[in-house]
């Protein structure tokens, strides 16, 4: 059975990020997406420690430890960047200004609940960082993760067993086996990776899958508008 490598997953997610998008790439697996964003498209990266723009990993010998990303790795900025403090940075999230957040996950429920900060182990030292802010902090939350955990269990579940990071926040899931959209009508499979079969995918996934949208994935969804305020929306709607 074909499985996408981590880099192939990153390349797949990158294809769905349209020009003009303001995007936060979470620490770990999602960071790889930056390597696959088209260089001829203006896509804006946001890092919660206070920088917006485009950048690449700083080459050895050129590290500036005042110039880091959220993973605390040194970066090299391209022209056009902006710096800002932490409250403004998180205002960009909770204020609905970011278009897409790409996050890793331990578990995702079919309703879009996200668990990615804690495994619930009683002796674990809790550490949340920006995870809960990111989970509610963009118009669309993409999760990229391995389809199965290290024990071979489905990471897509009816209900997350780990402590939640956010409620009903995930809209799309990219795994090493498939691309899935979480909708009010259920979990729709948009794509299967390589020779992964529908029957196999369902057999390793703990929630019912809807294959009616298979092959309908639009490669680059149009950017959603920032939601209007209630009163403005009412005015528009007459």
């Amino acid at each position, binding site marked *: 059975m074909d499985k996408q490598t981590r880099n192939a997953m990153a390349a797949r997610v990158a294809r769905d990020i349209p020009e003009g998008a303001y995007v936060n790439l979470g620490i770990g697996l999602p960071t790889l997406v930056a390597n696959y964003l088209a260089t001829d498209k203006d896509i804006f990266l946001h*890092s*919660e*420690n*206070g*920088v917006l723009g485009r950048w690449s990993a700083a080459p050895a010998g050129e590290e*500036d*430890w*005042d*110039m*880091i990303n959220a993973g*605390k790795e040194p970066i090299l900025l391209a022209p056009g960047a902006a*710096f*800002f*403090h*932490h*409250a403004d*940075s*998180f*205002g960009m*999230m*909770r204020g609905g200004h970011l278009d897409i957040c790409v996050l890793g996950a331990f578990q995702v429920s079919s309703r879009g*609940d996200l668990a990615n900060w*804690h495994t619930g182990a009683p002796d674990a*030292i*809790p*550490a*949340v*960082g*920006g*995870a*809960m*802010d990111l*989970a*509610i*902090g963009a118009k669309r939350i993409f999760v990229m993760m391995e389809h199965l955990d290290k024990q071979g269990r489905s990471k897509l579940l009816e209900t997350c067993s780990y*402590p*939640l*990071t*956010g*409620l009903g926040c995930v809209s799309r899931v990219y795994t090493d086996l498939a691309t899935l959209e979480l909708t009010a009508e259920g979990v729709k499979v948009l794509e299967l990776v390589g020779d992964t079969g529908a029957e196999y995918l369902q057999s390793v996934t703990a929630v019912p899958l809807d294959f009616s949208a298979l092959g309908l994935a639009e490669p680059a969804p149009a950017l959603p508008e920032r939601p209007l305020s*209630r009163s403005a929306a009412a005015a528009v709607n007459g």
Partner: protein
Amino acid sequence: MIDKLLPSAADALADIPDGATVAVGGFGGAGMPEDLIEALIAQGARELTLVSNNAGQGDTGLAALLKAGRVRRILCSYPRMTGSHVFEELYRAGRIELEIIPQGNLAERLRAAGCGIGAFFTPTAYGTPLAEGKETRVIDGRGYVLEYPIHVDYALINAEAGDRWGNLIYRKTARNFSPVMAMAARHTIASVGRVCELGELDPEQVVTPGIFVKRIVRRTPVGSATADQQQVG
């Protein structure tokens, strides 16, 4: 004449009492005022409540402050990271209290304290274990959690440059929490890489206006403050 520049970090930190709430800027090592932390250790204040994004790495900086047993309680978003063994040992031994706070709430609660906001509703952490026991409300169909400001007695921050009125600019991502900590604190002490003449900082570029800053000191390499003290006595 108002001159907020003090001769040394020791002078700037001299009045921090036991039991104070101290916010320390920085995200990882970027913007961490290492010289002020060193001076705080030498100053000796105990039973501190520490507000900082992380809980120190290795055995220097915040980790050294923790190791010296000066911190009773820490408010932070991400204490567990590579090299955070000092914090982990204290935490497992029950010798330090931890309040874990989502990073954006940490920033916004500091900002709220600085702006006189009594409390605010935020969507962050709604429906998660970190909202347990907190007041919640559904507004326009979205769930929110009530969060309160974090008032700070002393903020220790790092800035690229400052003048004698306390106007500050920062360097790259070393800015992070420093501006909101400066607003939240009754006394903000900034370690600056460069002391400027009045007017040298372009008013259009000032990030933290001097109203939020009580004292500034010239940044000294870590290790020098301790050496001075040893010479004195």
